[in-house]
């Protein structure tokens, strides 16, 4: 059991590939992603789009606090340019 940060992102689906590559470059390899997510934010309604252009993807990253800071730094400009949200919360990781 180790305290970690849960970083949650909701980002435009077409941005995810580039985002994951950027995280990889930061040394953050592990994540979980849920596709086909809809929602509403400052850019209006998104999702349920038969062409997949305006879908969101939800990304969950469990990581060390200092890694979480790097993730936050990385995604901030992405969020303001292309939309999406980022939440950070606390959790305990069950080590195995």
């Amino acid at each position: 059991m180790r305290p970690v940060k849960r970083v949650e992102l909701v980002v435009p689906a077409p941005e995810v590939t580039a985002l994951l590559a950027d995280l990889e470059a930061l040394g953050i390899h592990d994540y979980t992603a849920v596709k086909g997510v809809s929602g509403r934010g400052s850019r209006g309604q998104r999702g349920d789009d038969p062409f997949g252009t305006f879908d969101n993807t939800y990304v969950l990253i469990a990581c060390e606090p200092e890694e979480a800071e790097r993730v936050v730094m990385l995604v901030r400009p992405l969020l303001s340019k292309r939309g999406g949200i980022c939440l950070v919360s606390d959790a305990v990781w069950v080590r195995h």
Partner: protein
Amino acid sequence: MNTDALQNLADPAVLFFFLGLFVGFVRSNLEIPAPVAKFLSLYLLLSLGFKGGQAMREAGFTADGVKVLSAAIVLALTIPVLAFVVLRRRVSPYDAAAIAATYGSVSAVTFLAASQFVTDQGTPAGGYLTVALVLMESPAIVMAVVLATWVRTSDPATAASGGVPPSPRSVIGHALTDGANLLLIGSLVVGYISGADGGTAMNPFVDGIFKGLLAFFLLEMGLLVARQLREVRDIGPFLIVFALVTPLVDAALALGIGTALGLSVGDLTLLAVLGASGSYIVVPAVVRFAIPEARPSRYLTMALAVTFPFNIVVGIPLYHAAAERLVG
């Protein structure tokens, strides 16, 4: 034109579009699962490309083909410029560029509905029309991106904000590798290479069940348009009028050029439809990335909720009737 229009309205695919609209308006819980709707749109592109490639192979490059492709290129370069000039005083320059790209490019689903219509009317079009569709897909996007870049560099606010715009290289990469675009072009090439045996083997899939899957997709399009129409007020009366008048103007332009070139009724009608339709698949996929300042609640809603149903219901039979008057 009256009987044409009536016949179009009695087409099952068009009727399923109306059913979708109606079901959406009464806010039914009917929903086509998103993965299935995505599959249907990929299926339509694949079939369209494959059959176009087959037709190209059968007919070869005729003089008519060359004429149609020349006309298509002229339209693809003219329409976005016209649109941008009209729009730039009324909306933000980024929205103007995105809308110009939308109408300069084309709608594959509208094209499909029109192809079925001209075939049903006994005036089928040549396979090179599918090549024209492919040719018209991208130039308007490139022009719009160039316009947006020019606006951006000449706008002091941008420099101040420090936002780094996407590089031209990555934008062109996006445009060229867009999935819908690649699938259409690729299927055209596959259809061309496959030959008669391949065509026969693929026929029940790309042709037999085509009408049914198109009907199913138009049902989903009706649901989608009904949802989008709820947000149509946000785009304001000017843009609504623009989304209704532009197809007429662009179709007239296409009919003029095509008549001068002596095209057949079927070719002429489809050329008009290519001019008149606005893209809601490929353009948003690229513009979303290339001109992030533009609002999809404008360019997408106009193409999807106003121009698309207008063309399906009124436009296609109208352009066909005009083509028959002009060259029939």
